């Protein structure tokens, strides 16, 4: 009797251990994904940098990897990425901040219940749709305002990208502002401040590191965005700081190469991994910075 019970317990124990191991392995898949990404990017990039000196990669001002006279100046692609991200932020930061302040300090609970899902729906629209919208709706509109604007340009892509990240910036900023303790607001109201004065002079500074995290995570989104730029900003590498020109970004270049038929193992094939590694490092810096600031902000209150 007791022996049977004991053996039952043993089998129960083994089953539990097996299940735990399976669940652990599932959790490890995410680590495996990261390792896989790092392995692939570094492996192909090492071969790439065997052909192209790192110094040239960082300082050359031409990007013509598929020509006979090949130049690999990543700064060309980086300029497109930075300009389009800059335009996107110029749209997303003011709009996102205003919406966050409004939702957190002004709106009634009912209005918030309505607005938040709508913003969520806006961020759920596929980026290829935003690309179509930028190329075939916004660009013709902008061409009426700015004569001579080319059909592909960073401005229109950047504006639409900015609208795309508004919900993201707004929702993280709003979380940060709502985390500011009520007592601070009450103190401010007791001194006779209006809601706007309280929002701008008490809540906003109090939530600043959380809001900065929202901006930084927004930058990371903009830098990694692909389809809007591939569709609306053109794929011609162009070292420019002018948003009304057409230029390829790092992501658009990867798309362009992937659409063609490059043989596996050629230098052209490896360039997309080197470009990918640059992109990955860029977004990693922003992500880590953003999360550190967010965490520090959470500990503050």
């Amino acid at each position, binding site marked *: 009797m007791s022996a049977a019970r004991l053996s039952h317990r043993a089998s129960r124990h083994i089953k539990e251990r097996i299940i735990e191991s399976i669940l652990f392995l599932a959790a490890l898949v995410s680590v495996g994904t990261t390792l896989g*990404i790092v392995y692939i990017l570094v492996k192909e990039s090492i071969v790439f940098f065997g052909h192209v000196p790192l110094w040239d990669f960082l300082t050359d001002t031409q990007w013509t990897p598929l020509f006979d006279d090949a130049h690999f100046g990543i700064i060309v692609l980086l300029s497109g990425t930075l300009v389009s991200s800059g335009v996107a932020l110029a749209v997303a930061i003011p709009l996102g901040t205003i919406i966050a302040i409004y939702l957190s300090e002004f709106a009634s609970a009912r209005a918030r219940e309505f607005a938040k899902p*709508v913003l969520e729906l806006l961020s759920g629209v596929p980026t290829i749709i935003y690309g179509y919208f930028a190329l075939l709706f916004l660009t013709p509109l902008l061409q009426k305002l700015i004569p001579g604007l080319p059909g592909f340009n960073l401005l229109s892509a950047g504006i639409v990208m900015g609208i795309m990240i508004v919900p993201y910036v707004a929702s993280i900023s709003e979380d940060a502002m709502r985390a500011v303790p009520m007592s601070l607001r009450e103190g401010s109201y007791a001194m006779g401040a209006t809601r706007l004065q309280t929002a701008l002079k008490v809540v906003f500074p109090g939530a600043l590191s959380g809001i900065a995290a929202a901006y930084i995570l927004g930058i990371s989104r903009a830098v990694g965005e692909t389809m809007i730029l591939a569709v609306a900003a053109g794929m011609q590498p162009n070292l420019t700081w002018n948003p009304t020109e057409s230029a390829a970004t790092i992501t658009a270049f*990867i798309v362009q190469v992937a659409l063609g038929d490059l043989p596996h193992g050629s230098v052209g094939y490896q360039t997309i991994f080197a470009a990918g590694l640059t992109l990955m490092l860029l977004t990693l810096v922003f992500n880590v910075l953003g999360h550190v600031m967010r965490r520090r902000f959470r500990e503050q209150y």
Partner: protein
Amino acid sequence: MARKDIGEIRGIIARAKRFDMIFGVVGVLALGLGLLTFVTLFVDMALDGYTRLTPDFFTEFPSRRAERAGILSAWVGTTLVMLVTACVAVPLGVAAGIYLEEYAPRNWVTDIIEINITNLAGVPSIIYGLLALGLFIYEFGLGQSILTAGLTLALLILPVVIVATREAIRSIPSHIREGAYALGATKWQVVQHHILPYSMGGIMTGVIIGMARAIGETAPIITIGALTFIAFLPPSPVTTAFPFVSFEWLNSPFTVMPIQIFNWTSRPDPNFHANAAAAGFILVLMTLAMNGLAIWLRYRIRRNIKW
């Protein structure tokens, strides 16, 4: 400080109140601008594409003539890729979520897994495409197939599913667990009988949001080299001969809705733009419906749960 007479103070107060009101209006306008963009985008797609939204559009293959082209291979491809994605991402994501909430000890391994998931959620989607190109296609030899695309998108939405699972589990009060343990249940029995059923709604919400994201993802699929012109269907998963199911479709070349839209958008001929608009309209409707369903589910869960 100089004394101010009552009129001056009233002036200051009136000005402060005016600014307050102005900002209220600005806030509504900013929100309205977001909403307006969304409505414009939706209406623009509908207007550009409505002439193409006929039953034939769903049953025709892509064609060199815009009026004849349809999205048959695209929507079939999307359905099959989503099937693979769901089959991989849901069990893996839920299992990982359960492990991290119920089993994981507080040690450095758990810390690494958690930091890692946070970081993965911020990796640009095109990087997943490079991972698939280098690893799935050239190291594992899976080819430019439905299987590769499904696996890639599964890895992409894994963080979404894991985070949703964890949040759903975390909202279950610990006295439920303690009650079950007090009756002698093992950890897995607690998970199986209590944690999983109670967190099902929250997990579903996360899965739907993840799938809505995967369905519109274009960049990683382009990177693995999905073909844009596919005038055939993958082999049918159901066959007439024994054993009646076939998995050959997993290795088939394919195209998906976003790729088809990209292809039509990037052609100079405006007739193809109408096709892109029509297909885009359908894609937006699909993602809207999925996101809407998820939001509604979450709303219902929040209202109905009373522990």
